[in-house]
């Protein structure tokens, strides 16, 4: 156990109050009797693996509960997350599907005509809908819904564009799954971490990953076998990521599904053949140093990847690169002032190709330690032009933090500008605008506003929809 910080006066008072409050629960009892009662009440399971064949008994229920504990806040993070299927068919007004208070809504691309299409029945034990994604043909929506049971027991509802349920794909308790429609709109890749989350709680290991291809017709369902050593990062701290790190994205040509997994203790992006024939690490595409590729996006034609992270030629994680998806040279560009300045820590992340593939929207983060213990954390949204290699900062936001004695930074509550949420940027079909999520300040719950901005940087942003927990945007022909 690490040392805790000394309690402040209120914490001391609260500790005393809580102990007083809970005093009625403390009863004198003989520990030996309690121990014998417990020992007599159940048979021993021994090693964890021995419990699984028991079936859905109390032991399994408890395993699920433990799993639920681990993913509790991953669920909260999922509430604030947006799947990343940004359909790039030209023209059309665009339609947004978004989650608000656990219910599913659709709206026009400008935020008008907000319509409830499905209730998630959220209550104090169910979170309702978490995320949603349009199919590329805009005829269907896939939506993750917490259906109760163990703490987070997700199901994926496949429904028509007006909310008529086609089928529900039931999933084991685990983390909030990620969704990615196949390019032909026939099935959804569902990334899950269902089975071994409990091991994370009990044994301190990371969770496994599952990849299910679920069709509108259940007969088309197929599970892709992933290497056993692949581990999920889904129980990572939801405070620091917006979209679940358990992340899947289908390539535009339908051949590959990109996933993020931990392999041999190293996090990275991996490509999984959609036909189940194999996998390969994205880092194989580049000469890797350090942590390698942290986030990526497929170009519209599927031939290139926009990658963000660090590699040879750019040792810090401040680089955006474009690389042939079959391998080749990387064009890397350093945009942050952070390299070489020990007081600045910057990175680039979550690139998003424009519909024409000529530009990339990318987020930047910069932490300024020069005035410790005061720390300023800045988020920027950039438009990067591949032809000119120029970055244009479109918007940014700064939040102030204070380092505490334990080495963590506590937000002071002071925010200026727009804190753009990573992984939630969508291009409009004409490539002229970007939609993105901004954390609503002064609101402790996970709530965001969808805003839009001119991708050329020629305008201020405008509000599209407020009070959103996640969104996806699609554009019809």
């Amino acid at each position, binding site marked *: *156990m*690490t*040392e*805790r910080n000394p309690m402040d006066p*209120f*914490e001391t008072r*609260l500790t005393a*109050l*809580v*102990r*007083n*409050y*809970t005093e*009625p*629960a*403390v*009863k004198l*009892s*003989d*520990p*030996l009797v*309690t*121990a*014998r*009662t*417990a*020992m007599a*009440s*159940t*048979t*021993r*399971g*021994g*090693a*964890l693996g021995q419990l699984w064949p028991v079936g859905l008994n109390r032991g399994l*229920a*408890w395993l699920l509960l*433990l799993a*639920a*504990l*681990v*993913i*509790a*806040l991953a669920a909260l993070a999922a509430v604030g997350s947006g799947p990343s299927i940004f359909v790039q068919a030209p023209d059309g007004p665009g339609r947004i599907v978004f989650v608000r208070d656990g219910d599913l809504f659709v709206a026009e691309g400008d935020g008008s005509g907000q319509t409830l299409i499905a209730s998630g029945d959220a209550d*104090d*034990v169910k979170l309702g809908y978490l995320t949603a994604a349009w199919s590329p043909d805009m005829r269907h929506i896939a939506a993750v819904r917490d259906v109760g049971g163990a703490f987070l027991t997700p199901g994926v509802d496949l429904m028509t564009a007006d909310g008529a349920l086609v089928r529900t794909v039931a999933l084991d308790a685990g983390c909030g799954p990620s969704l990615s429609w196949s390019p032909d709109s026939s099935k959804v890749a569902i990334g899950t971490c269902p089975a071994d989350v409990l091991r*994370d*709680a*009990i044994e*301190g290991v990371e969770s496994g990953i599952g990849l299910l291809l679920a069709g509108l017709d259940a007969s088309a369902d197929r599970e892709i076998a992933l290497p056993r050593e692949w581990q999920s990062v889904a129980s*990572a*701290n*939801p*405070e*620091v990521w917006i979209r679940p790190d358990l992340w899947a994205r289908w390539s535009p040509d339908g051949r590959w599904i990109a996933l993020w997994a931990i392999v041999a203790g190293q996090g990275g992006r991996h490509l999984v053949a959609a036909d189940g024939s194999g996998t390969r690490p994205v880092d194989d595409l580049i000469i890797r140093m350090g942590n390698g590729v942290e986030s990526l996006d497929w170009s519209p034609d599927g031939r290139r990847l926009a990658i963000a992270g660090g590699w040879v030629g750019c040792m810090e994680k401040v680089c955006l690169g474009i690389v042939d998806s079959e391998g080749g040279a990387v064009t890397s560009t350093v945009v942050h002032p952070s390299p070489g300045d020990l007081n600045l820590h910057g990175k680039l992340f979550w690139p998003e190709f424009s519909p024409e593939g000529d530009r990339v929207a990318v987020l930047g983060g910069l932490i300024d330690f020069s005035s410790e213990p005061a720390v300023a954390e800045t988020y920027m949204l950039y438009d990067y032009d591949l032809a000119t290699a120029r970055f244009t900062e479109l918007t940014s936001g700064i939040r102030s933090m204070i380092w505490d004695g*334990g*080495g*963590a*930074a506590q937000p002071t509550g002071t925010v200026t500008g727009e804190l753009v949420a990573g992984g939630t940027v969508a291009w409009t079909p004409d490539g002229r605008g970007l939609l993105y999520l901004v954390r609503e300040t002064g609101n*402790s719950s996970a709530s965001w506003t969808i805003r839009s901005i001119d991708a050329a940087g020629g305008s201020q942003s405008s509000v599209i929809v407020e009070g959103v927990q996640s969104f996806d945007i699609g554009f019809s022909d």
Partner: protein
Amino acid sequence: MIVSSAVVEGEIAGAVIERAVAGDEMAFARIVAVHHEDMARIAYFVSGDLDVAADAEQAAWAITWRRLGTLRDPARLKAWLMSVTANEARQIMRSQRRRTVRELAVDVPTSSPDPDRSALIDLANAVADLDHRDRTLIGLRYIAELDSEAIGRELGLSASGVRVRLHRLLGRLQKDLDHD
């Protein structure tokens, strides 16, 4: 039975657990003796119901007995027990669909209100407004006195994530308790 928490949580904890796993009821009873009070408190704090708390604690011990052998790190024993208890309390509450508002007995009014009792009522009201996750977090911190790292391991959070949440919760509770 007098057992030092420091002893069981210290360097011989592994040996005690090992013996308990092997079926030594005295070893298991030593673990019970050290931790049952905090477990009872946490179960009550999460559920707000004495009956549920008692059931949850006993159920947690049954689970502990069955699963103790899966605990790799003896240093995690306390955090694990508290986490199991909080979950069991929540599960029982959920299965029974019980309300979680604690009702304090109403005393005959006196000429001046008892400030301690008033504070307890304020706390009871404030706790009733917290969801089970936040109650668990408060319980693990201020009953079990776990540090942020240990809490984070049990809840799937980073230590900094725990601190942020606690910071927010404390602000909320302070506001509720200092409303007058």
